């Protein structure tokens, strides 16, 4: 007889049920927590608290943690293949997810060298520009690609030092909820990634209008959802990141970053 797993939300480094006590059955059998707006707000608070520490980690340390996540994901290949329905497509999605984590792990200490600049201003000043994480980032996993679609946005956001609240794919949340177990064993500090399952219709408006969320990635959203999100995002000038799902590049990391420019006079 199996010892079955209770699927839980990943919130502030802990596996918890929805505070609402609700659940839903996306595939008709397994109970999955139906996260509430309160869960989201708790996740934002946890993320905000975790942000300064994560952003202050050295680039190399963040890279090692992302690489560790790749190791853990690869080690659980069999489990994820099963969750993704098996077959060639599942295999490819898993391989590409591992590859994305490895690829972005190697970017943490290179992005500033690609996007940062020393600016030759017309005066006696030393002036440089560096990328810094934008802060609390919301990611909406695409329904059609529940693992790869999420990992491909999560990795670049974390790479730059952001903290994340991810909405699992509503119709197939198990891969995302299991990814939480990968992250929990990869030295990702508590609150840096929070994964919430539930109904998009219920949760998206809260995510989009939350005043302490700095950016929202909408690659996994349809046109109507994007419009509604963009309207709410205006409430606190959220960055709405719309690069396509296929995008895998330092430009995507940079989309989750702010550029900071520092001036100092030169003199004796």
């Amino acid at each position, binding site marked *: 007889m199996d010892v079955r797993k209770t699927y839980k939300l990943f919130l502030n480094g802990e596996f918890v049920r929805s505070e609402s006590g609700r659940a839903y059955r996306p595939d008709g059998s397994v109970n999955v927590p139906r996260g509430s707006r309160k869960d989201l707000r708790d996740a934002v608070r946890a993320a905000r608290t975790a942000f300064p520490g994560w952003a202050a980690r050295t680039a190399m340390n963040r890279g090692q943690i992302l690489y560790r996540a790749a190791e853990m994901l690869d080690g659980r290949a069999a489990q994820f293949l099963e969750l993704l329905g098996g077959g060639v497509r599942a295999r490819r999605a898993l391989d590409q997810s591992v590859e994305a984590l490895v690829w972005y792990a190697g970017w943490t200490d290179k992005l500033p060298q690609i996007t940062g600049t020393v*600016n030759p201003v017309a005066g006696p000043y030393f002036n440089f*520009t560096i990328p810094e994480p934008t802060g609390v980032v919301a990611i909406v996993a695409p329904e059609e690609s529940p693992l790869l679609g999420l990992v491909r946005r999560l990795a670049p956001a974390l790479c730059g030092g952001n903290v994340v609240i991810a909405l699992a794919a509503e119709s197939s949340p198990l891969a995302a909820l299991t990814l939480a177990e990968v992250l929990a064993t990869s030295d990702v500090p508590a609150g840096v990634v929070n994964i919430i399952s539930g109904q998009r219709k219920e949760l998206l408006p809260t995510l989009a209008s939350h005043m302490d969320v700095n950016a929202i990635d909408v690659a996994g959203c349809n046109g109507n959802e994007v419009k509604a999100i963009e309207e709410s995002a205006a409430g606190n*000038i959220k960055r709405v990141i719309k690069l396509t799902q296929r995008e895998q590049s330092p430009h995507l990391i940079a989309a989750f970053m702010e550029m900071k420019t520092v001036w100092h006079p030169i003199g004796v």
Partner: protein
Amino acid sequence: MAITKKQTAELAKQVFEYAPAPEAIDHIKIQPRYGLFIGGRMVDAHSKKRFPTINPATEKTLSEVAEADEVDVDRAVKAAGKAFDSWSHLSASRRARYLFRISRLIQERSRELAVVETMDGGKPIKESRDVDIPLSAAHFFYYAGWADKLEWAFPNRKPRPIGVAGQVIPWNFPLLMLAWKIAPALAAGNTVVLKPAETTPLSAMVFAEICMQAELPPGVVNIVTGAGKTGFLVVSHPHVKKVAFTGSTEVGKLIQRAIAGTGKRLTLELGGKAANIVFEDAPLDQAVEGIVNGIYFNQGHVCCAGSRLLVQESIAEPLLEKLKRRLSTLRLGDPLDKNTDIGAINSRAQLEKIQGLVESGVEEGAELYQPECVLPERGFWFPPSLFTNVSQSYRIAREEIFGPVLSVLTFRTPNEAVEKANNTPYGLSAGVWTDKGSRILWMAERLRAGVVWANTFNRFDPTSPFGGYKESGFGREGGVHGLLPYVELT
């Protein structure tokens, strides 16, 4: 022995007795009325409506400009759309040459532009002459050079222009904001429809002449004048693919909401409430100059103004004494006078906003200091002001005043300074004054702001990216980063 306020004022009068030194205006030709710049020439507005633009220092009407309506904006966008095909396919080195030409023409007509800017907007001539106009020319010169080097800016990507850019700019640095908007847009191969602010349209009208003088192909730059309604028409026009706005956070939010779901690209450069942080080891005299420059430059009509002074408690008293003494030497008056430090407030509406916020500061319990200062009878004026005894919750510590009003707060530890500095929804700029290098970098790392000035303030350069964190907007202007909002990367 401390010098009393009265003695300071007396001293100021003795030491700083200046003869009037007004800039000549006889070489300036401001036309009695202006049309719209559409398709390479000045045309009459379909709306047939006009509004006056006045000199805020005298309240006299300088000219009447057209108020563009829906038909006018549509014409401008269509002209830009038509020009886009050829402009975006023009050889990049030619695009560069047009921009170099524009830069040179700005330099050639710099005195005229400076005077027009000062008459229309109220800023001191020494600022328009030494800051606004040279920086505008430099901005065109910088981006001119990028026009034929774009592929070097985006490794592994092919940059392509987006299309017609709709750009709406504020009244605090009219020509400079125009340059920040138009130069990168054109360099990347886009065409533009620009709406200047309703209180400061005249330097944009001179710029329209410069476009004609440069023989810029018709429709590449179009300028439509009007108020908020016209601006809204520009950004919401369906053929405008890229929107760039500089102005208040309030209007920025309206724009972001208005274009939701349209797929238009957007950059916003919005308000600020910058902290200017002075540590006890800072060179105080330099810091005082930096504080003055930070908040009284351009009458405080600066989105990145250092409007919150955070001073370490141990030096609060001597610093404030020096600062107050320095304030009493600032010369307020005729913006055209070369010795004027503080010019006119840009408009009556802005003056009323400043007055309202200053009243709220007094009511909430802050202590107001203003040096003895005679305000001219006509025009809009506000004396340089500073508030002490300010709590973080006061409106004057939270809201952007956009006037010559400084709120002074104190701190004890570097952590407290960071905490207070970041305790705002804004994040455009910040200042740090200290002699300790490691502390500068420690602070710079923690301040959530797009620009950090260390032992200096309010410096700008075309090579230096500028823009905000949080509710101060997104996107950068200046530097290689300033190209990104104007390209599609494939």
